[in-house]
């Protein structure tokens, strides 16, 4: 058995990024993600990489834009208010088709809110939080191993589809420590970066831009981006399926909430209830087909989130027409993290044999 390391979630992201070949990190301090810039500031110099603590969240995402425009793997990380500040440039990068990684170890809001685990940024992450109508790839880890693995996957998907990718975590998966088994970056076929800037001595002029003023040019560009989103939905949706085959109630949720729900599901099984868990791992693309097929036989879904109801909208759009979707939310703050016992109560409430 490979050596298991006790690693904090935020650090697992850094280890995954470094294993994925990321050598450019640009960020700004904000709780609860500070382990990430601290780790990268220690590691980058020895790896011949670059670390900059930028003057602002805005500057840091624009440094990512610059480095990534040359084809380098670059990343930034922040927490909710900081991610809001980066949104304009994330929209630019979606329009410019620049791959990169953005990590959101989200915290509670709105506004300054608090530093507790929260899932209040689901809409912002998956619906295109900036202007102009776009999407980015959004992955939601629920374990330390996934923080590592999905970070590597995010870089690859970003390059394959030429768009920004986001890891959406929170203070639970960011601060939690668990055993991690590091492993080499899995091999994936990646397209040539025939768009990356390098100076014209290596060929004709290349321009990385999002301004399209010619007749019909911008519309065509939007349809091109849309085709990628459709492609992603067809090929890249990922989810965890836990005991749903005979379930008469399926619990769902993402990230840390799903992790707590999984124990509640196991407790319900011990009580003889046929309950399962369907956990989206990719939030964009949303695994709509998994929900459609699971609700062919199971007509009760209980969605659990650390907010007042966000992913539940996508769940409702995805399930079979006669399935009922219930929601249980705990918008976060100090003392508001639900327990498995509490979620078991909710399962009992909606469970019908």
């Amino acid at each position, binding site marked *: *058995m490979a050596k*298991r390391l*006790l690693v904090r979630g935020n650090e697992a992201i850094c280890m995954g990024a470094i294993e994925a070949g990321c050598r450019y990190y640009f960020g700004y301090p904000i*709780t609860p993600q500070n382990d990430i810039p601290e780790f990268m500031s220690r590691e980058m110099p020895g790896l011949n990489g670059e670390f900059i603590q930028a003057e602002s969240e805005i500057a840091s995402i624009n440094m990512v834009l610059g480095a990534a425009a040359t084809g380098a793997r670059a990343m930034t990380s922040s927490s909710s208010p900081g991610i809001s500040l980066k949104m304009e440039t994330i929209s630019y990068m979606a329009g410019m088709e620049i791959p990169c990684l953005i990590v959101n170890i989200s915290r509670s809001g709105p506004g300054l809110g608090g*530093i507790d685990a929260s899932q209040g940024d689901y809409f912002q992450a998956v619906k295109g939080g900036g202007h102009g109508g776009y999407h980015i790839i959004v992955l939601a880890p629920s374990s330390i191993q996934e923080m590592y693995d999905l970070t590597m996957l995010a870089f690859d998907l970003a390059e394959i589809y030429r768009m920004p990718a986001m890891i959406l975590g929170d203070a*639970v998966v960011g*601060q*939690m*420590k*668990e*055993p991690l088994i590091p492993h080499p970056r899995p091999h994936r076929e990646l397209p040539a970066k025939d768009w990356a800037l390098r100076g014209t001595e290596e060929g004709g002029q290349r321009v990385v831009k999002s301004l399209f003023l010619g007749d019909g040019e911008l519309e065509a560009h939007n349809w091109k981006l849309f085709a990628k989103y459709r492609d992603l939905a067809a090929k890249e949706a990922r989810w965890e399926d836990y005991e749903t085959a005979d379930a008469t109630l399926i619990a769902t949720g993402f990230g*840390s909430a799903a*992790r*707590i*729900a*999984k*124990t*509640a599901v*196991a407790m319900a099984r011990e009580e003889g209830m046929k309950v399962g868990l369907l956990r989206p791992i990719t939030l964009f693309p949303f695994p709509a087909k998994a929900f459609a097929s699971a609700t062919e036989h199971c007509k009760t879904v209980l969605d659990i989130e650390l907010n007042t109801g966000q992913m539940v909208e996508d769940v409702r759009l995805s399930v079979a027409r006669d399935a009922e979707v219930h929601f249980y939310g705990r918008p976060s703050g100090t003392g508001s*993290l*639900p*327990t*498995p*016992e*509490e979620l078991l109560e909710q399962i009992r409430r909606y469970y019908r044999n």
Partner: protein
Amino acid sequence: MFMAGYGGQGVLLAGTLLAQAAIVEEKNVSFLPSYGVEKRGGAAVCTVVISDGDVGSPVVGNPSVAVILNQSSLDKYGPRIKPGGICIVNTSLVDLSGFPRKDLDIIAIEMNAVAREIGDARMVNMVAVGAYAARTGAVSIDALAEALKDTLPERNHRFIPANVRALEAGASLIGKSGQV
């Protein structure tokens, strides 16, 4: 296992040590810290789930074992301990006289006094972990001693013997029957 105290008592280090010891023993484990925005003096709480199978939720509503290092933690978390559970209390800082629960196995240890006796008042957390390990058998003292190497930064390795002494002091207070 659930451990609560105030910042500076070493709650988070103790939790990390337990998690590391679980890895030494090839068990599955999660360690979830929670603390106030202050660097010192705020509440410090952590939950460690040790399991031979999958660790599900890193959050536990009703812990079967709680280690309570100060009064406010007992007041806040005492009612949540699972009936029939174990509550290891630092009676140097906690007054148990008003604590109503009779359905718990309460283990009272004057941890600050024990730590001072072995020569380092900062070792309260290690005394607590030693007592916890001896009472529950979740991890062995040997595994904890081994885990100190990975838990403490290199520059603090010279303190390992003192930490081991504190772990053993905590463990020695638990009799063969598992009682003080």
